[in-house]
């Protein structure tokens, strides 16, 4: 059997609470971090991603205390990110219970951080997030700190992330966050061709068909937020649906 596609709940951390927004704004409360993680754990999530969405904006270290709380009872692999700027902060995240580290804007500020994290903690621990914005058919890099679209070349950045030793790429379509209109299948499929390491995709799904459609991309994991938080779907239902469609997922 092919390696199963991972179903990964996305937990966004803001003032010690979980939140979920639309297009990286208008955040609503989405529960307490540790108990929510425990629920996803019990439902059979394949991994969890916990991101401190304010740290990089505020230029501070991420909320390691909450990470520790979540990690304490979490038997699911946990990726942590949000404002990790230095190897020392990365070490503290690992010591607080993260299995993998996610770098997004801080990797753009200092691409050598990708290599440093991969060499210190292993390639498998280094996830680089790429935030993209679609504007009239074209795709651009996006910086959530300034809420601005960046001029850089998306494909060149994706190449560089891999050349610098990242173990995984997570591509998020900012304009689709919370939109429930489906993934950016075409753009993702095009980018997939350039990516030789595992690819996680995020942004857009609103129903089970959208999740099933995503398999056209050939991704390794689906990062889900809104769909799990503000709808009637849960991981068990999603997996049952995908299993019925003969998709490679972890069942038990």
């Amino acid at each position, binding site marked *: *059997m092919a*390696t*199963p*596609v*991972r179903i990964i709940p996305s937990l966004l951390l803001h003032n010690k609470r979980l939140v979920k927004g639309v297009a990286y704004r208008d955040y609503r409360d989405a529960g307490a971090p540790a108990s929510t993680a425990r629920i996803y*754990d019990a439902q*059979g999530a*394949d*991994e969890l991603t916990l991101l401190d969405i304010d740290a990089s904006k505020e230029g501070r270290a991420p909320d390691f205390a909450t990470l*520790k709380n979540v*990690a*304490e*009872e*979490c*038997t*699911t*692999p946990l990726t942590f990110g949000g404002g990790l700027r230095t190897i020392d902060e990365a070490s503290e995240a*690992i*010591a*607080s*219970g*993260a*299995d*993998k580290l996610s770098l997004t804007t801080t990797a753009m500020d200092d691409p050598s951080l990708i290599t440093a994290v991969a*060499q*210190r*903690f*292993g*390639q*498998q*621990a280094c996830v680089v997030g790429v935030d993209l914005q679609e504007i009239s058919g074209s795709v651009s890099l996006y910086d959530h700190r300034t809420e601005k679209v960046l001029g850089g070349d998306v494909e060149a950045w994706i190449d560089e992330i891999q050349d610098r030793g990242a*173990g*995984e790429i997570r591509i998020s379509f900012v304009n689709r966050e919370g939109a429930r209109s489906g993934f950016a299948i075409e753009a993702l499929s095009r980018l997939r061709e350039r990516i*030789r*390491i*595992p690819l996680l995709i995020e942004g857009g799904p609103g129903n089970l068909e959208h999740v099933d459609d995503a398999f056209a991309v050939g991704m*390794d*994991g689906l990062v889900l937020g809104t769909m799990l938080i503000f709808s009637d779907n849960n991981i068990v239902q999603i997996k049952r649906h995908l299993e019925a469609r003969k998709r490679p997922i*972890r*069942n*038990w």
Partner: protein
Amino acid sequence: MRIGIVEYGVGNLTCVHNSFYNLGFDPEFVSTPEAVLAVDRLVLPGVGTPQPALAGLAERNLGEALNEAVVDKGVPIMGICLGMQLMCETLNEYGQHKGLGWIPGRSVHLADLGVTERTPHMGWAQVTPSEGVSSPLSDIGGRLWFYYAHSFVVQLDDAAHQAASSTHGAPFTAAILKDNIFACQFHPEKSQAKGEKVLERFVEWEP
């Protein structure tokens, strides 16, 4: 029962500790030769690359104590991920390194086994225990899904040491058993209920 998690400066020891703790045990971190020799069960976790890991063991003078505990005294030990690879004679990752030498074999990149699937291999895979080998993995029952995050695997000289296999494009060694040494390439501490079962079985294990 004293469980010692070897602390040598690399890897995610917190998760391993939390997992044993949540099962009702009180694991200790051991980072000196004396501490290594004082416990009834040893766990050698490991995340990252061989060079800093081996340097971490050397700096703390742990090599000899581990040998004494594992080889001379027969203390049951469990290696996890890189910890399993460290138990081999040779490691090939960012150069060639000499391992602890307990298991005849070496670590090689998945691509060297002919794997064309994407690496690192990240995610869950089913594990098939080897027939006729009794290990902490035996008789758990149900589908044995475990979590992996690795690019390198152990290539054994003696197939009899293989306790289980998994597949990522090609079959590879998922777990090793030799005398009082048990090791797995996957992460039991990150594999939900089935992983907890393996940790529990390891503590109860009488090799």
